[in-house]
């Protein structure tokens, strides 16, 4: 493998970025309602020029108000999940780790179910009503992150094995709570909760929420990127990394917190979408190698591409109905992953 240079890094990211752009444009065109490529291009240019009054109403509502926010959400959620997956795989030095391995999605699920249950009792002004479930989910995720953090400490320091075990125990405990809560729910609450657990991008996020998770992604992913050289050394082993001058405890805490926050944000707006955080990091590693300076941006872009494609399939395959996007990520992701694995072995 040739050494990574700035030029190569930029080139690869640009290529991935272009692929993402093409995928987004195709995703904007496809959907239950037919949209012509010409009309789409004209409208997109108008949006970018802030001439929104000229947007034809037919395309305007559907493309700009429904598809675009959803696709942007898929971009941010996909990028968050796969960066979180990459980080957890490096941090726990376990190839099976994914963003949900430490129970964050279960914690978020408990939070969102409780939010669903109290939501009907509270009278909330409509501007904030859409934020209750994501807020509940994020609180659930944050509490779980803190709990797992304290469980994962031994002799005052965070330790990978203890963290992993603590996370798995927390996840199964929380799953039991979810089962219990689900059995007390009924009607639309139950359907809402089970739909949430399958993962879905179909509810239009308020734009304030999109800003929030966009900013959260930039901060958390940026924090992880600052540790990418240390993560490379950590691959050799924690002792070895320490001897090479890596401040291992600091790296662990930064990566753990940042990756957890990424997961929590993604889960709170989209539910638990599986496989993206597991498959995309591995796929990127097979294509680009395991240098985290390349792997982290590649995972972000690759995750965004993968989730936009999966969500577009979810929207269009059985239109006008929708598939749960989690089912699509698994169905498309697993064969693709096997292909990559075989190709590398051959």
């Amino acid at each position, binding site marked *: 493998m040739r050494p990574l240079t700035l030029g190569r890094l930029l080139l690869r990211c640009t290529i991935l970025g272009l692929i993402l752009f093409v995928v987004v444009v195709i995703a904007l065109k496809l959907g239950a309602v037919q949209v012509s490529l010409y009309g789409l291009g004209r409208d997109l240019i108008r949006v970018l020029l802030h001439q929104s009054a000229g947007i034809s109403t037919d395309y305007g*509502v559907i493309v700009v108000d429904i598809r675009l926010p959803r696709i942007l959400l898929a971009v941010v959620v996909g990028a968050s999940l796969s960066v979180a997956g990459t980080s957890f795989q490096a941090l726990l030095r376990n190839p099976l780790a994914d963003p949900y391995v430490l129970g964050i999605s279960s914690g978020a699920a408990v939070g969102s179910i409780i939010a669903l249950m109290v939501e009907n009792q509270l009278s909330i002004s409509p501007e904030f009503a859409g934020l209750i479930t994501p807020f509940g989910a994020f609180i659930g995720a944050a509490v779980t992150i803190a709990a797992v953090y304290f469980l994962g400490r031994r002799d005052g320091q965070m330790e990978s094995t203890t963290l992993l075990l603590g996370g798995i125990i927390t996840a199964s405990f929380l799953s039991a709570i979810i089962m219990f809560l689900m059995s007390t729910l009924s009607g*639309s609450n139950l359907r*809402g909760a089970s739909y949430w657990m399958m993962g879905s991008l179909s509810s239009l996020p308020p734009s304030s929420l999109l*800003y929030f998770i*966009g900013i959260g*992604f930039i901060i958390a992913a940026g924090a992880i*990127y600052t540790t990418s050289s240390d993560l490379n050394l950590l691959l050799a082993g924690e002792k070895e990394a320490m001897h090479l001058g890596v401040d291992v405890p600091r790296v662990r805490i930064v990566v753990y917190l940042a990756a957890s926050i990424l997961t929590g944000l993604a889960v709170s707006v989209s539910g638990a979408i599986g496989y993206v955080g597991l498959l995309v990091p591995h796929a990127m590693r097979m294509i680009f190698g395991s240098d985290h300076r390349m792997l982290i941006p590649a995972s972000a872009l690759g995750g965004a591409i993968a989730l936009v494609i999966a969500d577009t399939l979810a929207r269009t395959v059985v239109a006008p*109905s929708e598939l749960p996007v989690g089912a699509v990520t698994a169905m498309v992701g697993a064969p693709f992953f096997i292909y990559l694995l075989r190709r590398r072995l051959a």
Partner: protein
Amino acid sequence: MLRSRSNSVSRALLFCATLFFLLSEAISAQADSSAQPPSPEMHDVTDGYGRTVRIPVNPSRIVSLAPSLTETVYALGVQDRLVGDTDYCDYPPEAQKKPKVGGVINPNLEQIAALRPDLVLLSKEGNMLDTVRALDSLHIPTYATDAHSVEQIISSTQRLADVLNASEAGKALSDDLQQRLQTLQVKLTGVPPRSVLFIVWPEPLMSVGKNTFVADALRRSGAASIVDSNQDWPQVSLEEVAKLQPDCLVFAASHTGSSGNDFESVAHRPGWQLLNAVRNRHYAVVSDAIIRPAPRIVSVIEDLARQLHPEVFQEKPDNERPSTPPTSPPFIKPIASPSRVSARSSEVQCVL
């Protein structure tokens, strides 16, 4: 190799900032574009969520997101203004030909928007709050109904008729429904209710809670559900059912062909022979309209009452008026229990 870490960080930040810029650009544009409401005559009404919604006085392009609401729209005779419904809207059969907008819990927003509705009807029980919010953010007027008893089904039908500017049809329909219920109630006066188990789903066994409109419908047809739960669709253990020994099982048949909850398939499941109702083959099958909060529920109540208390209806064989909305009692399987029927008829004769 990379020259320095700070260099790489600044590049990453630059990339992210670009991404963020594009994102914010798109969102701010989105906010601008959506503020152009059409201007027909509007008024404020209160809906099933208890919120005040601004809707057109005379909605002309209606989308229904629940089978019960589609049925009600047809029953009110304003189906010409219905421009779309869900995949599950199968009654009346013509409703299947309307343009589809996807499922009840996951309707396709694009498809709804493309139909350019001036009113979307939802049910608080069946649809998701997320759907309501998404439609709100697209400035599509919504109206939700909510009914937990037969009485409320009728009153919410009347309110829906007012909302759809079909008050007179609503008045006629609800008067008719009220009168039929009244007639039935008079007939069943003094008839002891039969204890029943209403089977929503046999495995795991699910029934209805006491606060649902289904339990109310059972009560009105001279049946008492053995399940006393505050949950709407409680899971019940067979043990509990065997202890309470319902007199009769009630199934909701689906005319779309899912026969999973048919008597024969249930009777052969292990453990069910413990029930006297299964051994004596006491069961009634009613239309699945019983689990839809729509006007048709009154027909189901009448049908179930006939099946559970045939003796009451023996003297006057058929006095049903033809003007009623489409009644479909195709699932009348008389309960094979001659001894019981004769025992009952004597009671009834005393009462009358």
